[in-house]
């Protein structure tokens, strides 16, 4: 069990650093498409966090969240991308 605790710590630290890097790209841009990409990456990382949390607790109460995040993140990013396309067409 002790080994698994270390495993969880390493996983959380790596995922946390990934989130920080994603936020950096989210703030810096430069393009709207970059930000949409970061939005999607963040949602995937969130799902990973919840999944690891599920493993830590051995408890299934949060699994609904995993699926909800997965679908909401996809719909949100896709809508944003299509909207960006529409804007580009209107401009040019």
């Amino acid at each position: 069990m002790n080994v698994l605790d270390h495993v969880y710590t390493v996983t959380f630290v790596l995922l946390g650093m990934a989130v920080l890097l994603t936020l950096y790209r989210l703030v810096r841009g430069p393009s709207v498409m970059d930000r949409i990409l970061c939005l999607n990456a963040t949602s995937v990382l969130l799902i990973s966090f919840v999944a690891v949390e599920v493993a830590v607790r051995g408890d299934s109460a949060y699994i609904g969240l995993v699926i909800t995040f997965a679908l909401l993140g996809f719909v949100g990013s896709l809508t944003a991308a299509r909207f960006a396309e529409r804007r580009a067409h209107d401009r040019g």
Partner: protein
Amino acid sequence: MTAADVVTAVTLPLGALFAFVGTVGLVRFPTLLGRVHAATKPDTVALILILVGAACQLPDVRVAALLALAALFQMLTVPVLAQTIGRVAYSRGEISEEHMVGDELAEALERGDRPEHRPGRLDEPT
């Protein structure tokens, strides 16, 4: 430590590593298309690994089926998103020529095929 624990101990950090390196690529790659590659797909591999690792710690097959469902959704949605972003980035001209060896789509567009402006496309605002 059971076999399931060993699988978890391998897949969870490996998945997190994939997610982390993919994000490093998201920050470091100079082109938008390169960033699309780095952000969407190592993330998928990472998520699948992490879901496998988490499923091994669950007492019940029924709950593991839910995680498998999440992995399936991810594998269905990621290509759609990557393709949409790629197409939009291309049509907005947000690709840098200097990082490309060749571009046969541009050549085709010059020849007059114009695949992105043919009639009958539902999503093309006229």
